[in-house]
């Protein structure tokens, strides 16, 4: 772990809270903030490639609307704040490609509830971010548009699948972003890019308008430069939605008022197996360092066990592809999406449209899921995985009897090089080992910066029981308050060679 550097305000770009205070004090307009984001995207995105599309005119219109509402006295923390949106979340009339040829011309007829709530709060979408096709991947390389680059080192992957959203926030193109997390797709890119990423409790945020991958695991969540930024977005997007019957009706607590209050008597659980073979020493040291920080802040560090966690990757890669094979059956070349030019029968129309429209990773997962659900294999694969899933959840229930949060690594390594794991899907899947079980158990988890190794960020994961977001965010803030990792910015240069 490298030594903390003093924060350098001149090189750090504004957080959502700083931007909000500028805007609400009248020193900055929403239109100007959106313009500044657009200029930064123009200067840097030739290198980073975080965005698939932007629509300056529509962003300006949303910003003008935000300025009007601020003039009318809007008190929203997000009024005028630029937000980057992962390209698997629908906005009426805007492209929503899922980084797939299948949806290259799709314009959804409705807006996702999470995006609708951000718009209602005055946030200004400034572009659609790159992802692994249909959110299937851990590197943002499986994109029809090509990979996004890690702002800390452009030869490295930003993580995935929400790599574009993480990179956009890390590069200062937007202070906040939305992503989706099915097996780590918010937390892993947050760790690789050195930003905060939160996967809320399953059902806390409506999935309406999120293009479905694995419906029992998918959850929308925020990226931000700080814990407060992530909490502010969650406050806005959380809550029951009649349009998603799996969204929870539990009232949404206040995530912000007590956020800066340290938790007295916090019990931090540590799982010895997490620090076993396969974990890079620099990552282990940084995470152990963070655990020591908690101890020094008065937290009790408790050893807990998750005996079935070593089965989580295998369980996930049966359940998620099974659900995907069913969800993606809707792409038939008939209702919307790609249709092959040449076909004879209806059968051929389906096979060719899907064969041409989907990339290899999506095909692999559809086939894997179809196989796991097929006659003769259902019991051995899918049913077995659903049973192990129960055991994984029970492990967490037992662990959270003894602790309030579990601290762990997010990833076994810092950001890997683009292309490094591209030909070995299994190795790529195994890189999700620390994040996947939270989705299987439905519990909230976040990643926040806890160090650097050779110039690349390292993430600390905190997990808590279902609906424990208030405590989880406060625990994260306690650590963040003592460090300056989140104030560091990547050494990016724009096309003209000038460091912004």
């Amino acid at each position, binding site marked *: 772990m490298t030594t903390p550097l003093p924060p350098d305000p001149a090189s750090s770009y504004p957080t959502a809270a700083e931007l909000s205070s500028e805007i609400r004090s009248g020193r900055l307009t929403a239109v100007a903030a959106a313009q500044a984001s657009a200029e930064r995207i123009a200067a840097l995105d030739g290198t980073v490639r975080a965005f698939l599309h932007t629509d300056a005119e529509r962003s300006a219109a949303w910003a003008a609307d935000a300025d009007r509402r601020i003039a009318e006295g809007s008190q929203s923390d997000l009024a005028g704040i630029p937000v980057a949106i992962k390209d698997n979340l629908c906005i009426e009339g805007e492209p929503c490609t899922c980084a797939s040829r299948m949806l290259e011309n*799709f314009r959804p*007829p409705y807006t996702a509830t999470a995006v609708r709530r951000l718009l209602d709060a005055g946030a200004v979408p400034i572009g659609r971010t790159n992802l692994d096709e249909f959110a299937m991947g851990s590197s943002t390389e499986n994109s029809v548009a090509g990979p996004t680059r890690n702002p800390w080192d452009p030869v490295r992957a930003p993580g995935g699948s929400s790599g574009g959203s993480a990179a956009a926030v890390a590069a200062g193109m937007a202070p906040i972003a939305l992503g989706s997390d099915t097996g780590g797709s918010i937390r892993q890119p947050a760790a690789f890019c050195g930003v905060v990423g939160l996967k809320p409790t*399953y059902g806390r945020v409506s999935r309406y308008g999120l293009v479905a991958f694995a419906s*029992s*695991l998918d959850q929308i969540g925020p990226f931000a430069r700080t814990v407060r930024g992530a909490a502010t977005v969650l406050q806005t997007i959380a809550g029951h939605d009649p349009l998603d019957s*799996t969204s*929870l009706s539990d009232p949404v607590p206040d995530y912000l008022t007590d956020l800066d209050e340290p938790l007295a008597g916090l019990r931090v659980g540590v799982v010895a197996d997490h620090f076993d073979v396969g974990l890079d020493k620099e990552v282990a040291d940084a995470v152990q360092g963070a655990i020591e920080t908690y101890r020094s802040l008065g937290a009790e560090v408790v050893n807990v066990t998750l005996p079935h966690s*070593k*089965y989580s990757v*295998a*369980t996930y*890669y049966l359940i998620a592809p099974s659900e995907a*094979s069913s969800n993606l*059956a809707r792409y038939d070349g*008939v*209702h*919307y*999406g*790609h249709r*092959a*030019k040449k*076909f*004879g*029968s*209806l*059968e051929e*129309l389906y*096979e060719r449209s*899907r*064969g041409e429209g*989907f990339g*290899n990773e999506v*095909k*692999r997962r*559809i*086939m*894997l899921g*179809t*196989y796991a659900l*097929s006659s003769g*294999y259902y*019991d*051995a*694969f899918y*049913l*077995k*995985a*659903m*049973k*192990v*899933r*129960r*055991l994984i*959840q029970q492990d967490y229930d037992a662990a959270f009897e003894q602790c309030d949060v579990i601290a762990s690594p997010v990833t076994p390594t810092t950001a890997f090089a683009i292309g490094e794991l591209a030909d070995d899907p*299994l190795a790529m*899947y195994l890189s999700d080992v620390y994040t996947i079980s939270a989705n*299987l*158990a*439905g519990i909230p988890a976040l990643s926040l910066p806890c160090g650097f190794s050779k110039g690349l960020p390292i993430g600390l994961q905190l997990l808590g029981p*279902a609906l424990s977001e208030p405590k989880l965010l406060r625990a994260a803030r306690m650590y963040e308050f003592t460090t300056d990792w989140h104030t560091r910015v990547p050494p990016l240069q724009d096309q003209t060679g000038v460091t912004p």
Partner: protein
Amino acid sequence: MAEPAANPQITREDVARVARLSRLAVKPGELKAFTNQLRAILGYVNLLDEVDTADVEPMAHAIEVRDVLREDVPTPMLPREAALANAPATDGEFFLVPQILGGSDTPSGK
């Protein structure tokens, strides 16, 4: 309860069958790579065989899903025009597909 042992190695023919079940056109040249990759993944997931899951209830969802009831009140639906707007082929009223029964007045690709 006793559970059947998972697969022997998945073969190229199995993958071709699964591609057909999935309605995915896969080129013969791609079958080999998919077979090797699926074989590696399925070999790995066989790890689950060592877990004793006797008497464990399968868990299909992260939260216990209950029936959700609401008043049956009519609300506006997606207008036909919007529902058809993204379709590759329509006649303005219906989605168009190639002929599946006898007759000759349905469209097909060349």
